């Protein structure tokens, strides 16, 4: 365990560095050390790696670290520490009929350090040190959903970077529209930097409600929005551009100041749109330096410049596995990447279907 604690110590120091540098040597060293630790302590992962012919002594690069499919978190416990030391468990969202993935953690330090550094850099890049922002969060609070990593993330951000007026506005799956609209009005007149954050679907609800009431606000020029998550399992879907247009029309936050976050429960770090950090450059996802993203050809597993599967390597995943193979498609974009999803309303490939799709939609 000492090796892991040493890795965590270096990671925490890295997250505190003011300038971000990819620092390939440092990542390589830490990733291989963390892989060796996880190989030793996580038995299913060790057997998975051995099945593919990979062991720590045979690896030359972090790129070769076998990546675990994210779905595996639904089927087994992937922990690299004694299970009884679990302090916190985050679970993926799911319906009553589907299994939920679980990320068990014995420490929240790497997770919280990583999320804070990234949030500050990509969502609040203009926040002067010591200042705080008013965060209006369209998500359930961490006390309501203690196993939601997203709610926990927002709770940490509010705790560390939010003003006292910052709040959650989703309770028992309902948007507290009256309170939210009153607070938006107050925020529009206030002096503190404003960030409206939440799930994409909650934003859609807010837009619908504002449209129904015929209200709109002109939030300060410096306001920004952060949205995350898709529309899986939802009866209604809108494209990002449609949503951003509505956010601009209803909240006065231009699309160029709406940041999409790409993250997942199984991962300690998150990836954000570049728009606030590099407003004059094309939108793309940027990664913190203690992570790496590989876009691989799903047929060969080799790096591709075209569309491919997204593999993520995250040093903040100290307690589980650091290499994840996601079910998402992506494409490299200069120093970042794009996440490619199927367009809403796209036709099904055939009349047969993925069984979990309709199970999720069937009555329990």
């Amino acid at each position: 365990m000492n090796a892991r604690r040493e890795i965590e110590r270096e990671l925490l120091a890295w997250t505190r560095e003011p300038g971000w540098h990819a620092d390939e040597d440092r990542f390589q060293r830490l990733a291989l050390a963390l892989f060796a630790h996880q190989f030793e302590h996580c038995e299913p992962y060790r057997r998975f790696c051995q099945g593919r012919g990979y062991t720590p002594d045979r690896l030359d690069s972090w790129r070769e670290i076998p990546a675990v499919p994210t779905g595996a978190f639904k089927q087994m416990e992937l922990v690299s520490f004694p299970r009884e030391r679990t302090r916190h468990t985050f679970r993926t969202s799911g319906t009553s009929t589907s299994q939920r993935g679980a990320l068990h953690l014995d420490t929240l330090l790497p997770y919280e350090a990583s999320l804070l550094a990234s949030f500050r850099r990509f969502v609040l890049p203009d926040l002067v040190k010591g200042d705080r922002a008013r965060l209006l969060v369209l998500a359930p609070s961490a006390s309501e959903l203690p196993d939601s990593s997203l709610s926990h993330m927002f709770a940490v951000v509010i705790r560390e970077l939010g003003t006292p007026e910052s709040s959650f506005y989703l309770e028992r799956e309902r948007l507290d529209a009256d309170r939210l609209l009153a607070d938006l009005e107050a925020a529009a007149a206030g002096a503190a930097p404003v960030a409206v954050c939440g799930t994409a679907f909650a934003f859609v609800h807010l837009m619908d409600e504002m449209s129904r009431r015929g209200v709109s606000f002109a939030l300060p020029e410096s306001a920004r929005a952060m949205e995350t998550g898709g529309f899986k399992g939802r009866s209604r879907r809108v494209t990002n551009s449609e949503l951003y247009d509505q956010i601009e029309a209803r909240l006065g936050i231009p699309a160029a100041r709406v940041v999409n976050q790409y993250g997942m429960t199984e991962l300690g770090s998150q990836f954000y749109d570049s728009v606030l950090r590099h407003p004059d450059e094309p939108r793309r996802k940027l990664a913190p330096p203690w992570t790496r993203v590989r876009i691989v050809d799903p047929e060969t597993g080799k790096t591709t410049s075209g569309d491919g599967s997204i593999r993520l390597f995250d040093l903040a995943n100290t307690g589980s596995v650091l290499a994840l193979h996601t079910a998402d498609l992506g494409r490299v974009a200069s120093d970042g990447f794009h996440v490619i999803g199927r367009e809403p309303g796209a036709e099904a490939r055939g009349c047969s279907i993925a069984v979990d799709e309709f199970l999720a939609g069937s009555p329990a």
Partner: protein
Amino acid sequence: MSADTLRGRLAALREAGAVLRRRPAVETIAVLARVIDSWSNPDSPWRRALNAQFPVATGFSEAAVREGAQVGFGAWSGAALHQLVKRELGGAERLDSAASRMAVPPETTAVVLAGQVPMPTLLSILLPLALRSPVLARQGSRDPVTAALVARSVSETDPEIGACLDVVSFPSSDTAQLDALLEADCVVATGSDETTATLAARVRPPRRVLRHGHRLSVAALGPEATGGGELERAAAGLALDISLWDQLGCLSPIAVYVADPDDEAVDRVARALAEALASSEARLPRGCIDPVASAAIAHERAEAEMRAAAGRDVTVHASTGSAWTVVREDVSTPLPAPLHRFVRVQPVADEHALLEALRPLGSHLAGVAIQGFGTGTPGLIRALAEAGASRVCAPGKLQAPPLSWRREGRGVLTPLVRFADLETPLR
């Protein structure tokens, strides 16, 4: 094309239908029977055109399209259409006004196509036409070939009936054109449950909607088909069912259940199926797939490997690329189906457990291929029908449904018509 143009084409079809209905119904059915005979002939111009154009447009391999069309269309005939009309309507004369029990078709029918298997497309178009209901078909983006070929085949066989069929194409996001299309008197919607529900919600009464949503098929092998020559034959048949249309049709099995108390049976079936799919790949190569599908396969394979690594009784048999995959599972519960020749072999203790395993599939179940249940076969067939299957057949036959197959467990023609009983004498 604008929505108004589309409305104009629908109006033209309405007029053409009025002209057609002056002819006896039996004539129309005879013409369409000839069209079906032509499609069932591998040397007809339509089949040759399909063989040439379909692989290019859809990415399926040429050999697989040839074989799939032969297996599918080869099972059909014009005589089967006549029999269908007799069975479901009591004869073509029921479509004419002189009949004592009239079958009244919709004045016009819009057919929204979504799949990429040619046979359902042909049938979706010809069935309303057989009732003399003109068809405005919107072809799906994944098959820009079949509907146009069907239109040509009808038009060249009988121009007057050909005038009752129009094929259009527009993006699904064009709601103005979609709403114009949905002004037809009856709408036949195919596609995902979500798509057909969205379409149905846009159709205004008193127009009727017939939804053909998600369906899937499975196979089950009993103790008499899990070894030796019987297993070889069953595996070869299942490999064909899986390979044709690259498993994208609703009649390709996504799972093979093994009901055999022998502990080794599931592994034997998985190995045999893997060998059969490898052979099939050599003869009927899988077509191109997009990165989304390829990624889904890679992901499911990796998840299965992880289950195996965790000590579960799971084995992955797979081609080097993503061409085919067989996963020997240790549970009978439904699991994701990434399609494109990806099949799971799952254990069930017996026929009762098989039915329990199929229960979650419910109304989505289409076909079940079974073999090796011996004297228990008749009882199993009945139980499968009660469980929701609309077709039970042998391995290797799933992709050759008869023209008269009641796909939804309902009639083939009857959902399209309204019956009126005429009590005589009338003055």
